[in-house]
């Protein structure tokens, strides 16, 4: 449990490494899914190709889309793309960078699935067994077989428990041949993707390195700013709610507690007084009787206070024995600040 927590903390500390972690997990999931999936070639001429190619192509598309779904940055990108320009210009290079980095991460699991599928060879065998040349794998001594029957026979090559044409076609040789082609395709595909990735990563610094530093910084900034904004909103909501609820309790209780000093206590965060007794009293917020508490709870549902904590609008709460506070003198003050 501890190990997981530490790993989780390490990954979360850096957003990029967190996304890399997710990407790695998806890649492992794709390999595991393939090994757990029970490939079941239909062994019928009309369906073999569709099934074989479907298994090769559809799950990668699904993994690619899943990669986008799991990536937090999708909503950041969409937000940055759609926002009105306002007072901050939009930089298309930043949008492109964000999209490219998301796409790169999402491509790893599909590439892995395709490679594993091709290396294993079953889907290739299923899709292309019908196109085999019987002259190459057939037994010389076998009689000529009509085309339709031959197709049906070849379609059964992937299914060793159903195949009944041993006299016509050598099943093992045909299987080996197709698997060999499939594995060659798999290695070529891996080589190509690795080479392209290598070009992108290793050769990119030759072009536009300065611009790259800038776009990397600002795309990271957009992400962080969004997080900061949410945190600030949450903290603000907390303070807002705290004040609102305190005022509500007091207005319902009808007691004139020393609200203002208590509020600055909480805001400033310094509990100077070691007097536990008065601290507890403050926490009660003036509600000390069962009926008052019931009234608080009843009204909280029936008649919530307005979302307005400006000090002069204290008495808007309905149904409360509202005691008007002394008018707070709003001060207008000017401060000059110079750093010489």
């Amino acid at each position, binding site marked *: 449990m501890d190990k997981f927590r*530490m790993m989780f903390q390490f990954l979360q500390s850096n957003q990029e490494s967190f996304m890399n972690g997710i990407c790695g997990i998806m890649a492992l999931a794709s390999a595991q899914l393939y090994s757990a999936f029970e490939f079941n070639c239909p062994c019928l001429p009309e369906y073999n190709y569709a099934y074989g190619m479907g298994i090769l192509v559809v799950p990668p598309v699904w993994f690619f889309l899943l990669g986008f779904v799991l990536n937090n940055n999708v909503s950041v990108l969409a937000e940055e793309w759609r926002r009105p320009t306002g007072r901050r210009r939009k930089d298309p290079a930043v949008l492109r960078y964000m999209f490219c980095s998301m796409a790169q991460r999402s491509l790893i699991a599909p590439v892995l699935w395709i490679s594993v599928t091709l290396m294993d060879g079953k889907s290739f065998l299923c899709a292309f067994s019908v196109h085999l040349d019987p002259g190459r794998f057939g037994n010389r001594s076998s009689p000529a077989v009509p085309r339709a029957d031959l197709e049906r026979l070849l379609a059964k090559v992937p299914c060793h428990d159903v195949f009944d044409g041993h006299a016509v076609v*050598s099943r093992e040789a045909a299987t080996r041949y197709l698997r060999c082609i499939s594995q060659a395709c798999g290695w070529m595909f891996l080589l190509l993707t690795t080479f392209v990735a290598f070009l992108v990563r290793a050769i990119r*610094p*030759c072009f536009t390195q300065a611009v790259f530093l800038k776009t990397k910084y600002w795309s990271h900034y957009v992400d962080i700013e969004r997080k900061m904004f949410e945190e600030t909103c949450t903290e603000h909501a907390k303070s807002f709610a705290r004040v609102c609820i305190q005022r509500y309790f007091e207005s319902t209780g009808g007691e004139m507690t020393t609200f203002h000093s208590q509020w600055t206590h909480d805001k400033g965060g310094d509990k100077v007084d070691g007097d536990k007794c008065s601290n507890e009293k403050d926490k009660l917020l003036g509600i000390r009787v069962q009926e008052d508490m019931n009234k608080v709870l009843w009204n909280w549902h029936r008649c919530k206070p307005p979302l307005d904590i400006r000090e002069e609008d204290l008495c808007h709460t309905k149904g409360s024995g509202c005691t008007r506070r002394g008018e707070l003198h709003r001060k207008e003050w000017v*401060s000059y600040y110079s750093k010489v």
Partner: protein
Amino acid sequence: MDRLKLVLQYFQSNSESISNGICVLLALISVKLYTSFDFNCPCIPQYNKVYALGVMFVPPVILFFLGVMINRHTGVMMEEWLRPVGKRSKNPAVVKYLFSAMLQRALLAPMVWVLVTLLDGKCFVCAFSMSVDPRHFTGLPNNTGLDLVRIMAKVPCKEDAVFQNSTFRKAVSRYVRCYSQAIGWSILLLLILLGALARVLKPCFDHATFLQTRYWSNYLDIEQKLFDETCVLHARDFARKCVEQFFEGMQEDVHLRLPLAPARTRAPRTEADEETEDRLHGITRQEQVNRLLHTWYECRPELDVSRVAPQPRVCVTWEDRDGRVLFSDV
């Protein structure tokens, strides 16, 4: 748990040891990949050699590219090689050192794959079974109606019907495997000898320069990491400030604000605020950040931290609400 943390910290502290760790990991992955790969010799004369040599040499190329991509030093080296000279002179020895270090690490996993392939022997048997002279072995099946080449091509395939109950296939396989393993061990011995010679003889050649180049290449790596970290921290503080000011900008206008005033209308500055100010280093606008990043690439600063950085002079300008200047230091 503590031990794991200690080990992780040790590895993270030294960038070279991280690269070594990744390189060893890649080598282990290559072994695992080989064992999980289902070698499937086609047993057809035209395809055997192509397939086997393909399996022996294509994955090493892939592993080499992967090794280069994963290595941090690749980026450092490329950046150092391609940057404009600016205020800092370029040392080609450092670039060469980084290149050779990167190359050595990237070549480990491909060599491991080739060696494992040779020691296992399947690829060799598949590729070269047709080159064996069958006269040295007894028991060649001669009633199958196939020509010699096709029979020899089927030697790697155990389950083929041609070789049932025949010791011929096993004998030929063993012979070719023996060759394969001999070549594998020889290559391994050669590599180890070369490595040992290089390690032992290196201090004989220009050791002092070597120490310098090693120091400065390590420095470049650390400098880039620190720059990235500083950018990240700066972005965080920039964002926090931006959001706070945005919130404050939405306030009702209960204070007569002069443009210099905002700092004082808030709660008294806490330690966190001071820290934030320090981390921003005075860079508080988008244009300043862009200029900073551009200059970092175009004109890297000198390697000289003995001078105190010149502090920007702060000039006070008081404007009233309509923007008219009341007083100015400028």
